[in-house]
């Protein structure tokens, strides 16, 4: 037993193993506490349907958090890009390519602004992105005048609708497949691409990274830009599922998304993290509400248990970190 605990894999994957155990325990509690719900498929389909909307952003935000930075503006970037997508799709009579290209370009532009404010102007990211959080949401309100946009006529039953949210074999929602594929791809970039490598070095020690020849500003800007892109993408997924844009779209995503990143084991101090952990974090945070209700507790417990989970997880990570140093 001790040889397993001290093996190389375990030593280098403590975070991933901890989060996996927490998730397994949680799902065992669901399973034995609400057997009638969790032995049947619909609950899992509901999870697979709803988790990707914030999961995609959480995966992408893992890069920004690993830099030791934070982005609070993504809920509003989801809002402004969804509005853009809805307006373009309805005004072009369902031209997917133009709508998709411009909405994601706007997302990247919003990310670029965040990146420039943080690197070139020197505003701390938590402050800069509070500003852009209000800015983009305000713009949504001004443009939409508080009303929503239905895209039923332009999107329902089209090939792009199928690609985004159709059910594979009538069982598995397409957005979940996209989510899993993106997680795999982003994990690969995070660990094995030059960009992911630079993210770790900049988050670890900015000054050292610069002396090693890493372009610190460029790395940060790209991180914010990709988060802008994935925020737009998440917004578009949500619109295909709902076939509707509403002016507050995205505003409920902030805490669940960031909670998934931190529960997943990525350090707020930067330099260390895991995309796989964020994925499991999404499974945990995304299942709590339905899980708690299925267990027969009232909905009033949701926040309480959410808070408990987050606190337990980050306490475990802090203790792991303490043992190391």
């Amino acid at each position, binding site marked *: 037993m001790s040889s397993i605990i001290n093996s190389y894999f375990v030593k280098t994957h403590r975070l991933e193993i901890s989060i996996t155990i927490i998730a397994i325990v949680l799902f065992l509690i669901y399973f034995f506490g609400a057997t009638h719900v969790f032995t049947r498929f619909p609950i899992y389909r509901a999870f697979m349907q709803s988790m990707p909307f914030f999961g995609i952003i959480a995966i992408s935000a893992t890069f920004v958090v690993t830099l030791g930075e934070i982005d609070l503006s993504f809920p509003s970037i989801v809002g402004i890009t969804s509005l853009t997508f809805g307006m373009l799709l309805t005004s072009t009579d369902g031209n997917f390519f133009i709508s998709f290209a411009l909405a994601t370009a706007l997302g990247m532009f919003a990310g670029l602004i965040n990146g420039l404010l943080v690197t070139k102007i020197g505003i701390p990211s938590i402050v800069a992105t509070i500003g852009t959080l209000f800015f983009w949401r305000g713009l949504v309100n001004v443009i939409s005048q508080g009303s929503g946009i239905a895209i039923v006529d332009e999107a329902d039953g089209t090939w792009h609708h199928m690609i985004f949210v159709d059910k594979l074999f009538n069982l598995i929602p397409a957005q979940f497949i996209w989510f899993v594929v993106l997680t795999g791809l982003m994990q*690969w970039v995070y660990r*094995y*691409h030059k960009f992911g490598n630079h993210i770790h*070095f900049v988050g670890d020690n900015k000054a*050292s990274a*610069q002396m090693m*020849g*890493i372009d610190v500003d460029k790395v940060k800007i790209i991180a914010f830009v990709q988060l802008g892109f994935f925020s737009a993408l998440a917004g578009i997924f949500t619109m295909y599922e709902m076939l509707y844009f509403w002016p507050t779209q995205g505003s409920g995503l902030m805490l669940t998304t960031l909670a998934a990143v931190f529960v997943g084991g990525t350090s707020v101090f930067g*330099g260390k993290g895991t995309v796989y952990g964020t994925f499991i974090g999404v499974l945990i945070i995304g299942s709590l509400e339905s899980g708690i209700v299925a267990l027969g507790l009232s909905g009033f417990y949701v926040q309480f248990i959410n808070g408990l989970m987050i606190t337990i997880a980050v306490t475990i990570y802090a203790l792991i970190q303490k043992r190391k140093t």
Partner: protein
Amino acid sequence: MSKQLLKLENIYKNFGNVKVLKDVNITINKGEVVALIGDNGAGKSTLIKVITGVHTPNSGKIFFKENEVQIKSVSQSRKMGIEAVYQERALCDQQELYRNIFAGREITNSLGFLKIKEQRKEADRILRDYIGFTSKAITVDSPVMGLSGGEKQGVAFGRSLYFNSDLIVLDEPTMGLSIQETEKVLNFVKGLKNENKSAIFIDHNIIHVYGAADRFIILDRGEVVGEFLKDQISREELVKKMIQLHESGKIKVD
């Protein structure tokens, strides 16, 4: 072929209103170890950061291997063959050793994905051949934070040798090291000459400097105020000059 490797002409560098370097002229020859000495705030660190591309000078010319160059970034100076070993050690603590060795110039495929196997293999070679690590506790996968000061310095040296640079810049290489580790570092500097590599180094300890360097350049408040070859000056005289400079703000050149 000329002996000259690096030449700085009339270098000025300001940070806002503060003139950190004022009309600095220095030359470094091939196979020569030059020591920069001077009090805190003399501009030593700024000068070497100009050489390594961390700072760009406000005016002045830089010649490397006889060609005029503008060093705009660290990666550019590395490509030219200038490698720095900084006092801040320029390593990232939480990252693995092999990633640290290749940071900023990763071995990748055409899509930018790292060739992990190759990096680990090369890093292992650097550890054994260049640095002489034999400890089993330290592998290429160890995070840097577990290393001692001397070991970290060793990694930085190994890195500079591996990338086959012509000029190695050492910023306080012995700071915070044990006596034994200091000995290793100084031997390393002396060993550079045998490979016809040049080095420029900063150290507060004149005894260290005197043992390892061929030439001494004394900086004071951003200006070069004295320059001596080792055979021109004894260690005691050098120390006396430094004290004199410290007390009077002037240096007497005979």
